[in-house]
């Protein structure tokens, strides 16, 4: 098997949930799909019955918006496989779970949808589906079987209609970071996806955000696009971030605050959405380049209006 370790994210593709919204089934595998594969047990979970399957681990799925899970235990040649396919409420939620679960990913050649391959696990995400295939041996053969099972699952998902990350994160300047963009919808997502911002969000409810960590020799930063459900949430966030009584309007220059520990910047995207940058830098020029990229992005957007 020819694998490429991801060091830089390629063009980012997230399948749209719209394409599969009419199909209520969940991708599955059966004995007939692969020679020697034997399904030992299969169970479906919905609502809060997810508690019965993963106990406290269910919270983060419920926070993102969980609809249904098909959990399959299978065996082949003495290797056990756990195949979990989650139908989330929408594509963003599925991507959110994927984004906080994927780490140190390898890429499989010619795999049709976004995925993360490692020694023990293959994770895929497309539309409202997030699927995880885990083997308990970590051998090359077991990893290959993970991939075969994933292909069977992927073939059942309509990947024709694709969506994208917000345009900001598709800037060419961010190519090397775009693969690590996380989608977060609540406190557990923050804790698992970008815990450095736990204090900023705390018990706030009704927000969602895309967060892109940026790590380099000269810069340690995170760029977030945050959507608030209401003005109160936005105001609370502004206060916690050090922007008391901030009034930012779309098209205005960004606002910034610098403390001994960090520099923070705010841009307005719309009434309920802002872009927030937090950076610790050993190089002012690296930070300025990053800010300039965002400024230029919004400058172009405003010209297009």
């Amino acid at each position, binding site marked *: 098997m020819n694998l490429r370790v991801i060091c830089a994210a390629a063009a980012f593709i997230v399948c749209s949930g719209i394409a599969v919204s009419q199909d209520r089934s969940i991708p599955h595998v059966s004995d007939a799909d692969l020679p020697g594969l034997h399904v030992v047990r299969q169970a479906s979970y919905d*609502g809060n019955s997810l*508690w019965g399957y*993963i106990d406290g681990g269910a919270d983060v799925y419920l926070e993102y918006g969980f609809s249904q899970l098909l959990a399959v235990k299978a065996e082949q040649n003495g290797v056990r496989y756990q195949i979990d396919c989650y139908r989330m409420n929408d594509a963003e939620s599925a991507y959110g779970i994927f984004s906080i679960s994927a780490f140190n990913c390898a890429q499989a050649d010619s795999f049709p949808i976004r995925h993360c391959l490692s*020694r023990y696990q293959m994770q895929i995400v497309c539309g409202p589906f997030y699927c995880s295939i885990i083997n*308990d041996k970590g051998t090359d053969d077991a990893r290959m079987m993970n991939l075969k099972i994933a292909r069977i699952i992927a073939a059942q998902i309509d990947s024709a209609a694709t969506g994208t990350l917000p345009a900001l994160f598709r800037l060419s300047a961010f190519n090397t970071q775009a693969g690590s963009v996380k989608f977060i919808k609540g406190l557990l997502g923050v804790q698992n996806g970008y*815990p*450095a911002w736990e204090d900023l969000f705390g018990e706030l409810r009704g927000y969602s955000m895309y967060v892109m960590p940026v790590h380099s020799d000269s810069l340690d930063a995170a760029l977030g696009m945050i959507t608030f459900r209401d003005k109160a949430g936005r105001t609370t966030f502004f206060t916690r971030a050090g922007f008391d009584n901030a009034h930012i309007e779309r098209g205005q220059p960004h606002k910034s605050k610098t403390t001994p520990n960090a520099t923070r910047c705010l841009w307005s995207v719309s009434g309920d959405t802002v872009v927030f940058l937090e950076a610790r830098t050993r190089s002012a020029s690296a930070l300025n380049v990053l800010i300039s990229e965002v400024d230029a992005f919004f400058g172009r957007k405003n010209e297009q209006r």
Partner: protein
Amino acid sequence: MTTRRKFFTSLAAGSLGASMLEPSFNSALAAILPEEKTATNVADLAKYPRTEQSMPGLYPGRVVQVTNPRCVSENIFNAPEIAKMVRDGILRLTGETDAVRAWRRFVSPTDRIGLKVNPIGGTLLSTSHEIVHAVIDQLLEAGIPKNNIVIWDRREFELHEAGFTEERYPGFTITGTERKDKAGSFYDGAGKLYGAAMIDPQWSYWADIEQHYDGETLPYMINEGKHSYFSRICTEQLDKIINIPILKNAGASVTLCLKNLAFGCISNTGRLHKTLWAETCAEVCAFPPVRDKVVLNIVDGIKGCYNGGPGANPQFITDYKTVLVGTDPVAVDRIGYDIILKKRIAENIQKEESPKGRKFLELAQALKLGVADIEKITLETLTI
């Protein structure tokens, strides 16, 4: 879930429950609790005097960390090396040179001893059999009868799935609170949950929060409402508990000794995870069925995880190649917390400590279950 929740300003505000607490205990809690806290029956703890056996046990604030680079390689566990790690850890903790004498500081042949393992990660990341066999072998050498040793957790069937079976542990009791019959049913012929007979109505952790469970979930929770009942395994069937959790994260915090005990010995936990996680970890362990029975903690860090916990996400599983030993669950958790935090920072999972990561440890310290202050913990490290 939260609509009927009542808040009160703080335990120090003069409620009846607060007035029952010792002043130092009271003020310590007030200093760390947020202004608004969901009410629990933590104040009831004042009714139960501490015993000689109460947490933090024989060695408050002391932790032994044993590291052995040969204990695991390519997912193959080295049982003799792991057994040596456990033995050396106990010897160093007790200061004994003889393992039998060391173990007998904690247990005697007449004790019914429960090994509280953690099987929720299945075969991928559960308490390792090599650790459990090491503990069992050393208990047997110390004269503990086989039929006095119990392997237990909340879910009996998860124990079986993780390999804690009669075949692997012949002659030992393997039991759980939530259970099924051989046909896979949670219910007996009369339509009652088997688990319902396993909880003790005399002991409960009450919290002013509740959650409705559907028919599929209820067997895993046993009851709804505002009470989480302690398992009879803790209240009736065991005299001593040896706690053997795994070195795992839970978000930016950890799930080690206190979490393994707290969420492992009560029912109706679903309502507690999201908003009372830290309080539950500390407060449940402060009730006598746990506080007065746990004599030793051995954290299995042969393999562990640094993200994705408490589930088992293979990409975040790592070979820590370490075992932590101590009677003080708070101190042991604090050392384990630092190990995981260091790994999370090294892997760029987080940049610095989350301010809420140690809240459960501070609560537990306020409840006098052990030492959370790193400056007051004596860590002894051994490399084999």
